[in-house]
């Protein structure tokens, strides 16, 4: 389907997660100034809710994987639709220290999800703790920003987003060429 190619012209959509009202306002302004579309939520569980993953879904990965391997071609289309359903989140940026679900917990849940594991996740923290930073990066975070986050940090996001976009285009090309071959028979 050619829809992925059309998305070249649309804005990247960033989901920002932070329990601090002030930091949410700040990250929103930083992202909008850099021409990102922003959805800001105040907790990890609201973030999962927004993605369409409730807490149970994120934990039931073994079941999901079973289902996916049995109906592979169908589920990948469904995943794409899940993204297209106006949610279309291209990157998640989350605070580390939040009550309930920490940013690290959220990172793990996202990475365990078959639908969302490829979405880049960035973690922010006001505390410079090397072991914390390393753990986040080792477990899949693309970047770790120290607060207060600056415009120069936000500028580092684009390459991660462009990587995701070219992956979308590649996979849509593959789909298209497969269909052409099939219809040619």
């Amino acid at each position: 389907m050619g829809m992925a190619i059309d998305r070249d012209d649309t804005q990247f959509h960033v989901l920002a997660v932070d329990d601090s009202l002030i930091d949410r306002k700040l990250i929103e302004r930083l992202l909008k100034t850099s021409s990102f579309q922003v959805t800001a939520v105040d907790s990890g569980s609201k973030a999962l809710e927004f993605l369409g993953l409730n807490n149970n879904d994120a934990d039931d990965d073994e079941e999901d994987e079973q289902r996916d391997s049995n109906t592979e071609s169908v589920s990948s289309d469904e995943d794409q639709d899940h993204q297209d359903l106006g949610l279309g989140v291209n990157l998640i940026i989350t605070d580390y220290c939040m009550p309930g679900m920490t940013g690290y917990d959220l990172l793990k849940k996202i990475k365990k999800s078959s639908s969302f594991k490829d979405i880049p996740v960035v973690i922010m923290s006001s505390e410079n703790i090397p072991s914390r930073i390393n753990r986040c990066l080792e477990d899949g975070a693309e970047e770790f920003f120290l607060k207060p986050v600056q415009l120069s940090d936000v500028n580092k996001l684009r390459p991660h987003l462009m990587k995701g976009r070219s992956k979308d285009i590649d996979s849509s090309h593959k789909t298209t060429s497969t269909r052409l071959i099939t219809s040619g028979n």
Partner: protein
Amino acid sequence: MDGYGMQNQIACIRRSLFDQGYLDEQFIQLEELQDDANPNFVQEIVTLFYTDSTRLIQNIELTLNSRPINFSKLDDYMHQFKGSSSSIGAKKVTSECAVFRQYCAAGNAEACIRNFQHIKQEHAILRKKLEFYFQMMGQAAVAQTR
């Protein structure tokens, strides 16, 4: 006062806020995020800070007044307070919060209570100074349209 006179006065007020250590680099970051589409961003986020931090101050007071003092809760509140004040570039408030957290970690109730008075003072002083600064800017904007 004419437009130029006011601009000069405002520039002086602003410079002194930095020179006297009330504000740091982060405040300049906020100013840089302000544009024609978001002309009041700095004032908005500062207002938000004062609303939010007032709530935190009340919670901290309550926690400091209870016996035994819940230092873990105190640290949580102060972590939030320090984070927000750092995000708006409130330099003195932020460093007082850092000191508080050290006393808190040491379980030093007396020092916490004493230090908290400093935090409240700095918080109030900065509020007055910023309110005056924004007021001057508002007046200058009006003067410019005449």
